[in-house]
């Protein structure tokens, strides 16, 4: 029972929760429960690694009611990372279209907010807000899990 011993030894990894931030102006319906679908619109994968960190045992975003799901049909929020490239613009619009109302679109990382590092690239169409309406933003290149979770908590209110 090596795994059992490991579980006993490690115990709780999740760090204590920071104080709850102010709620944002996101729709009140998604308070307490926020199912998220992630869209990579043209990221360098730095943001993805941080997103992975958010749902790891250390940061454990699930305790604030956020959860990743497989289909935008099940989702209330889209996590968009990276600049919107020409090839991904339509896919992004389709994904937003496939998400039932009320929904929030969260632009994660500087690229998603203002093209960041990749501004002016030949394949770049623009930041996320040029393509779809954005409800919340996470600044930083790359944003840390703490910063991402801070914004998520503003939406879920937990």
């Amino acid at each position, binding site marked *: 029972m090596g795994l059992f011993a490991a579980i006993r030894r490690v115990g709780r990894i999740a760090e204590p929760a920071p104080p709850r931030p102010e709620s944002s102006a996101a729709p009140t319906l998604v308070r307490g429960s926020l199912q998220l679908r992630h869209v990579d619109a043209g990221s360098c994968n730095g943001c993805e690694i941080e997103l992975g960190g958010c749902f790891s045992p250390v940061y454990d975003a699930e305790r604030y009611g956020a959860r990743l799901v497989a289909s935008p049909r099940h989702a209330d929020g889209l996590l968009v990372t990276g600049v919107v490239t020409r090839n991904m613009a339509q896919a992004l619009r*389709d994904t937003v279209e496939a998400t*039932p109302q009320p929904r929030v679109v969260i632009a994660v990382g500087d690229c998603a907010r203002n093209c960041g590092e990749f501004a002016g690239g030949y394949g770049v169409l623009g930041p996320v807000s040029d393509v779809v309406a954005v409800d919340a933003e996470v600044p930083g290149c790359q944003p840390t899990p703490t910063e991402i979770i801070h914004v998520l908590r503003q939406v879920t209110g937990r």
Partner: protein
Amino acid sequence: MSGPVLAAVLAAVTVLACLAVLAAPSRALPSVAGAGAGVVGAVGVVYGVAAISGGLAPVSVGWLVPLAGLRLAADATSGLFMVVTGAVGVVVGIYTAGYAAHGHMGRTPLSVLPLFLACMLGVPLADSVTTFLFLWELMALSSLLLVLAEARRREVRDAGVWCAAMTHLGFVAVLVGLVVFAAAAGAEGFPELSASAASLSPATRSAVFLLTVAGFGSKAGLVPLHAWLPRAHPEAPGPVSALMSAAMVNLGIYGILRVDVTLLGPGPRWWGLALLAAGAVTAVYGVLQAAVATDLKRLLAYSTSENMGLICVALGTAMLLTASGIPAVAAVAMTAALVHLVGHAAFKSLGFLAAGAVAAATGLRDLDAFGGLAPRMPTTTAAFGIAALGASGLPLGCGFVGEWLLLQSLVHALPAGGTMVALVMPLTVGVVALTTGLGTAAMVKAFGVGFLARPRSAEAERASEVGRAMAVGMGLAALACGVLAVAPAVLAPALSRVLPELPAGAGTPQPRLGALLRLPGVGGSMSPALLALGVAAGVLLAFGATQWRARRRPAPRTAELWACGGGALTARMQYTATSFAEPLQRVFDGVLRPDVELAVTHYSQAPYLVAKVTYRSRLRDTVETSLYTPVIRAVAAAARIARRAHMGSIHAYLAYGAAGLIVALLVAR
């Protein structure tokens, strides 16, 4: 009405119907043919009901059938089979009026239809060996004519050859069996046979049992004698396959019930075991083939084989339990057989009629090319859905009650049955359960992949709903399915008269098929009607629950499929019937033994890049390839050797004749 009058009416109506179809002007042909078959069926229903009510005098016409004359008698068992056959006939008649209008059946097959129906009504009436064999053969021949309705196509001719060969092999087995029986008993009337059966030697009885079960089993589609069934039923026109699958195969069961269970029986325990084993093998093999079949009508035909297997399991259980001295549970098993037989007739006729409707509307039978029929043919889709629900043996469907009774009889046989029963019954429960599970898979595939989703061919895309007559025919069959599913009590009066005639049900309390199904001597009850009500109530509750917060919801909207962001989906990206059954095919690889060819071509410059993958998989009937092919080859080889004797020279033939004569004289001396 008395027996002779009813028999005369049936004969007269049949002759009139055949003549009317032959004489009708082309424009009226479909309606006349439909009406003819419908009226023959209706007379059959009336005759059958009269037979169940009892008191019909036997009919004997000395001059009609060569050698021994025509002898007819109707007891409740005959009556039950006649009612089923007649009811299927009525439904098929109405349906044919619409189906024939599409020009799918010519005048000849249409004129044979009433005759075929009448023969099927006559077989249960037969009261002597000669009459039985005469009507049996007439039925076989007329069914052959109907199978060959579209003889221009090669597959139809192939199917016809298989059908003719196997039917006649079966006929020979029945013939020999019955002749041995009659010779040993010294009489050929069924009452006399029944009286003297007990005095026969065990060896004779067992020989007769084996021969007749093989013969009747081939008609009912028992493995390994089923090979004609999945060929002939699909190739026949829709109404004919419905008649064959819902009525004719039943007569194989009738033969077993009449000759082996009633006249010969009650037999030793191994008879019951043999029948049970044959039924179990058939059920599993049939349902497995149905689960991987892609031709809708072939799938339904295999499902027929499966259900006949289940009925044989029930019959075998009844025989086994009678021989083991557990009559109360034997009566449950016998009830299961009869209830399932009636239920099967209802859902299988509906299934074949719906498949025929699709074939008439699109010309398709291949499920891989179906799809998207639900919005285009809503009535047909609903009809097939009801049939599929019945065929999968789920609650709310009309196959459930029969399977439930069968399971109950298997479970409750255990405590009193001895070691043999204790070993056999759990395995049989496993077999029945596997059959239900795989049957569900087959029917989900047939209904889901066939009728839902999006069209996968231009023909399916262009499909449109069939006409009123066909819809009414299917509607009647669907109604029967519905009634049998929620109120099996409608069968109670008939069963209460049939069971006492059979060894398994004589002198024991019978299962009560009221609103609550109760079984004698065992705890265990079920109510299909209340289950249906309960599901309805549950659905309503669930609907009510979703009304919570409904007013806060944004208005619903229609959107393109998400389909995991794959962009525009083409119909080719859907799961087809083949892909749907692929996991099952892999699980049962050892039994099905598919021919799979997989060829991967790489780019010559870059061996890690794949240029082309071809995959071809073909499923054949394993029993057929491993059992029949060698036999057919041997026969063909023998025929080739025999052909050498035919050199076309008149001298040689004269010499053969002389040699034959000398041999005959020598033997006769």
